[in-house]
């Protein structure tokens, strides 16, 4: 009898030791994003059936909470096997320059990704001549979503300029409908909307210049953006501080609000709620500009299951993986060789725009500036929502830029 027990223990412990695992860290927990992730897991499991997938997710839009958990783990020498990170400054400044990542240029060569992804995206995942992560999608941050039924009911046209926006908003308000849905509970959402206002007022070049010093934060166009944003805030739902971004989207689905400005992960949310009566235009003044961000995964130094990670990255970069993931998530593939007709209507339009619009990096989503700048930026805008004091806020934005080493004289 004891021999049997000993045998069972030996077998079980051998399984524990040899069972192959991969821990994948992300903040994809809401509707479409979680489904997209599951699609990737399904493909991976089919190809590598013996590997157990540990789905380590931490809820919170834009990774607000997940990034803190990740940081303690990385600094503590316990990295997840692979983790979600925004391509651009967040990847390069936070993890690559500091020596936490392993380059994966060899994978790009083997899989030929450098031939099928556009230069704009290859640029932001590379540093010092090496590639550091696989972009799994492209998101667009500057979209205005609206409830088609409401717009039809009142005979309104979706606004393209700030002027039209305020006209439409006034009419909606008079009918007792919330013109602009907003959720500010996690602290980043207001800054996200303000980012699109900055783009609308400064244009692509002016906006990009803000992050490298070519445009000064004291610019009168920034003043204009702040004033416009303050005016927009008069048309948002009163309980915005109690809602997260997806809970704000729920207002559109329920027909209580008419519009919101959010990235195209909102599409994933709408699909997951079986809501198809939504329409979209670009945020006011954003004509011809693609405010982009990209989720990517890399290979941390000291990953416990290196081989499994490399295989997972292969799935992420594959045609099949990018297609399955992005259909659910509402984003578009980073690869340009995927058939557009396989995608729903919104994504088709975004894929067209991706090739012809001017691309600017999103600040709130880690592509345009370092994380410390982003944090200070969101704090100042968050305060602005409660106390729309244009002068003080602009002064604060100037001094943040100076503290970040970007001269403002």
């Amino acid at each position, binding site marked *: 009898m004891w021999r049997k027990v000993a045998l069972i223990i030996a077998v079980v412990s051998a399984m524990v030791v040899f069972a192959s695992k991969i821990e994948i860290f992300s903040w994809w927990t809401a509707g479409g994003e979680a489904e997209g992730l599951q699609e990737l897991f399904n493909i991976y499991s089919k190809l590598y059936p013996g590997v157990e997938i540990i789905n380590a997710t931490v809820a919170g839009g834009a990774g*607000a909470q997940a*990034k*803190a958990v990740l*940081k*303690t783990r*990385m*600094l503590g020498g316990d990295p997840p096997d692979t983790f979600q990170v925004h391509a651009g400054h967040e990847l390069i*400044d*936070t*993890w690559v*320059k*500091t*020596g*936490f990542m392993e380059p994966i240029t060899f994978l790009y060569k083997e899989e030929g990704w450098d031939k099928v992804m556009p230069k704009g995206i290859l640029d932001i995942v590379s540093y010092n001549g090496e590639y550091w992560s696989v972009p799994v999608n492209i998101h667009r941050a500057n979209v205005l979503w609206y409830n088609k039924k409401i717009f039809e009911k009142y005979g309104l046209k979706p606004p393209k300029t700030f002027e039209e926006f305020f006209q439409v908003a006034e009419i909606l308000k008079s009918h007792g409908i919330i013109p602009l849905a907003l959720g*500010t*509970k*996690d*602290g980043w959402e207001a800054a996200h909307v303000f980012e699109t206002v900055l783009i609308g007022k400064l244009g692509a070049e002016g906006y990009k210049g803000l992050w490298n010093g070519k445009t000064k934060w004291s610019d009168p166009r920034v003043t204009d953006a702040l004033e416009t944003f303050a005016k927009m805030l008069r048309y948002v739902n*009163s*309980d*915005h*501080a*109690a809602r997260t971004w997806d809970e704000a989207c729920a207002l559109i689905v329920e027909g*209580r609000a008419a519009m919101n400005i959010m990235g195209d992960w909102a599409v994933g949310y709408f699909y997951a709620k079986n809501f198809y009566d939504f329409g979209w235009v670009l945020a006011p003044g954003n004509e011809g500009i693609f405010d982009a961000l990209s989720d990517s995964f890399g290979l941390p130094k000291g990953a416990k299951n290196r081989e499994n990670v490399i295989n997972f990255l292969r799935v992420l970069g594959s045609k099949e993986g990018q297609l399955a993931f992005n259909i659910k998530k509402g984003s578009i593939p980073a690869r340009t060789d995927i058939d557009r007709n396989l995608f729903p209507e919104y994504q088709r339009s975004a894929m067209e725009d991706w090739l012809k619009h001017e691309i600017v990096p999103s600040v709130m989503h880690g592509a345009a500036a*370092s*994380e*410390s700048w*982003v*944090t*200070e930026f969101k*704090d100042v805008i*968050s*305060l602005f*929502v*409660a*106390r729309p004091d244009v002068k003080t806020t602009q002064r*604060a934005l100037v001094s943040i830029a100076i503290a970040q080493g970007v001269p403002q004289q």
Partner: protein
Amino acid sequence: MKTDRILSILFILPSFILVGIFIYGFIGWTGWVSMVNWRDVFPDFTFVGLRNYARLFQHFRFVISMKNTLVFTVLFLLSSISIGLLLAILLDRKVRFEGFFRTVYLFPMAVSFVVTGVVWRWILNPGTGGESVGLNWMLEKIGLGFLKSGWYTDPNIGIKAVVIAAVWQMSGYVMALYLAGIRSIPTELYEAAQLDGANVFQLYKHIVLPLLRPVTLSAVIILGHISLKIFDLVFAMTGSGIGFSCDVPALFMYDTTFRGNYFSQGAAIAVILLLCVAVLIVPYLTYSIRTEVRR
């Protein structure tokens, strides 16, 4: 040395070493980090003295969050202690089913602050008009619609709404403390007072309340240190709130350190929090050590 002496030292030693490293050692480490220039994920140990502290006192979020902490602490202590005392006095009047009521009032303490935060986030949901839910909905139904409020989303109320949830959670605990205190007062004192012709009011004023002073002191210390370093309740319930009206230093520390990668500034906030709690705790410790020595 006697064997039992050696044994007792051996028993104490492991915890002494662990506490030494993981509490006092890390306090020292945090203090050191707060005086260097660590502004990135990668550590930078260039000594900058008190510069991080100086910056902190000019930072709008820090100023707001310190003010909020003050408001929170004062309101939280006053309400919890007065409600707890009132409940204890009422329960002490030989009510039926006392055990049941005691459990009901004490039970919120068994719930974690995170759960309390999530629940109260919905109870105090600010939706008004047709979208009323929670407390606003209830007020509307019972004809007190004019009392509806934006609660934690109203910048003028902000942190005070969080106080409501905190009081809900902790006043039962204060009640338990007071009830134990009241029950430990010798019945002879009551009898003597009654013989002297004291009425109920005088009985409480001259006998019960003065004898409860040590209980009040413990309650102040326990609630005070909770409120100074509160994080989970605010985090789950409101986040920093609109215009940081619900912000507290612990939240700011978390944001600064783990989102902004400004580890030195985060450490500086932590040290200031520690000092605030020490201001409360240290006098209490010296007081209790002194009374113990006197015994």
